[in-house]
């Protein structure tokens, strides 16, 4: 009998293709948008996490001032690091793959008539190791160049493109501020970062060169450290914090005037943001699912009124209340499930299009697809129940007399 009821419902749906498709439109749009939002959002989150990890997973950044989540930037009065801080870390902390003191500033890179606004970063060869940079051509700095603060540089792929085109720049010179600087190497391109900045737009120079001839100060603005594979960044982070507290004479109960953060923390913060956005967009889309449900209820109610005579005939012929109830309920559920399925297909298609447009990976979240489907079925039950009950409780005599 249950099967028969499903069959009756299916026949009824088939007989009213136009009305049925209008009924499910809301559900289709709702499910499709939930799936699109969540899938593209997941892709974006994955992309951000991936790009950050391309910086180096074992990376630990040390900045003067407090947590970057606070008022931001260096707290006034927090002293900058010195090269000796970096040396102390390299000497006293075990399990490190590299320690790169970093300083820098924005400037113009000039070659002939071309110039390009970029950033000069002063550091050591450890910078390459710590930040996962490899060379496309040329070489790293020599110890002599580092010690002497020679006018040499390794340039990012963007600058090379802007100033040299397809030409190999190794051996040529560019002007940075007042100094003429020889290009000894070119970095392999990394592309855009997850935050939309161009990672390849910078020039690396020996730290001493930048301190003496560009910035004119012996401060360093941050220290980039990477832990050896298999070494816990948590432990390294704690060790560095202890060492720096000591060196900066931070009191026992005093908050430190520097911040050590590892990549995990950065990944968490940034993916947290995109995840929040995904949830928000998903929630907005879910509201449209709800609206779709109300659409189903509306059309089912109209359908009950329109089919009053039919219901009267069925009741008079011997249909029981629960059979009429089931018929209408199943009709609503079959419709909404069908809408859910179409929505899933459209949603995946839209997500695939969106992912390729935004250049994020397409990650199908089976969980959300299942949830969207179950939810659309539930919408059918919830919003189909009221009209179905109304149909089942009709008086057959009255219903038969209905025009």
């Amino acid at each position, binding site marked *: *009998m249950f099967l028969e009821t499903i069959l009756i419902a299916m026949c009824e749906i088939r007989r009213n293709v136009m009305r049925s498709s209008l009924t499910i439109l809301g559900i289709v749009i709702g499910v499709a948008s939930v799936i699109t939002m969540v899938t593209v959002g997941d892709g974006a989150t994955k992309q951000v996490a991936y790009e950050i990890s391309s910086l180096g997973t074992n990376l630990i950044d040390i900045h003067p001032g407090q947590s970057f989540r606070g008022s931001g930037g260096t707290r006034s009065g927090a002293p900058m690091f010195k090269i000796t801080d970096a040396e102390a870390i390299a000497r006293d902390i075990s399990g490190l793959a590299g320690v790169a003191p970093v300083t820098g500033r924005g400037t113009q890179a000039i070659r002939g008539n071309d110039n390009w606004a970029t950033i000069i970063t002063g550091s050591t060869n450890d910078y390459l190791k710590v930040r996962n940079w490899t060379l496309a051509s040329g070489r790293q700095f020599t110890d002599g160049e580092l010690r002497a603060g020679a006018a040499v540089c390794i340039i990012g792929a963007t600058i090379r493109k802007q100033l040299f085109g397809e030409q190999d720049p190794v051996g040529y010179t560019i002007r940075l501020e007042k100094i003429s600087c020889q290009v000894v190497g070119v970095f392999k391109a990394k592309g855009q970062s997850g935050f939309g900045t161009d990672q390849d737009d910078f020039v690396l120079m020996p730290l001493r060169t930048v301190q003496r001839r560009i910035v004119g100060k012996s401060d360093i603005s941050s220290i980039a450290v990477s832990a050896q594979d298999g070494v816990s960044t948590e432990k390294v982070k704690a060790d560095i914090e202890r060492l720096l507290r000591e060196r900066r004479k931070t009191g026992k109960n005093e908050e430190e005037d520097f911040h050590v953060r590892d990549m995990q923390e950065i990944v968490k913060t940034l993916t947290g943001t995109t995840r929040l956005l995904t949830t928000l967009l998903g929630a907005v889309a879910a509201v449209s699912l709800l609206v779709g449900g109300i659409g189903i209820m509306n059309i089912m109610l109209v359908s009950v009124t329109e089919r009053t005579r039919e219901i009267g005939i069925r009741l*008079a012929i011997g249909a029981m209340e629960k059979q009429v109830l089931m018929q209408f309920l199943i009709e609503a559920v079959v419709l909404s499930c069908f809408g859910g399925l179409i929505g899933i297909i459209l949603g995946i298609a839209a997500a695939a299009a969106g992912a390729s447009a935004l250049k994020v990976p397409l990650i199908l979240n089976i969980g959300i697809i299942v949830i969207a489907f179950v939810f659309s079925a539930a919408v059918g039950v919830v919003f189909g129940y009221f009209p179905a009950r109304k149909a089942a409780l009709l008086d057959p005599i009255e219903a*038969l007399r209905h025009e």
Partner: protein
Amino acid sequence: MITPASGTGNMSPVLELNGVTRIYGTGTAAVSALQGIDLRIDHGDFVAVMGPSGSGKSTCMNILGCLDTPSSGIYRFKGVEVGKLSRDQRALLRRHYLGFVFQGFNLLNRTSALENVELPLIYRGTPAAERREMARKALAAVGLNGWETHTPAELSGGQQQRVAIARAIVASPEVLFADEPTGNLDSARSREIMELMTDFNRDRGITIVMVTHDSDMASYARRIVRFMDGIIDKEEQNGGANNVS
């Protein structure tokens, strides 16, 4: 499920009304449609119900057909007091024992003649293949072979009425109720329908209760019950030639 005492012999009462009243509405707006009806219809009878408009014929039919219950008095269907049954129990009675030919056809639109006739069998749980076969036979019995796939919109009034009759008799009901079955047909079509009804009554032993305004149609019945203002005015045996075969 309720199991009424199965019909025994040819002249046991199938339907029995005792002092049945039916009052619509309450208070000053109350309309007394039936004011004490006593009626007994035996197995195999063919009763025509006549009377002026508003005299309570349809109201009485609805009660007899277990679609409605009396306000007071007792209605027994095969010995079972219908007024004490639930809505669903009455639905089961209708499903298993009764057939209806409604005024104005009342077929399902956009549904083929065959599917319309299958409908009562679906609720009886008859398997699909058997159902199809029975529906085909019922359509053939009303002279509609070849029209199975036509929808009501594609059928004439007489054909629609015959589909409605096929639907009413497909499950071999014990009692067939027909409220003005020829109401919107011309006299030739009406006579065809009446021939059919007479055949079902005579050959299959189906008890028939039929409302009609037309004394020509009533002459096909064995008995005529005349209503007047909610009471039975007159009951007469019909010696009409149509019953003699």
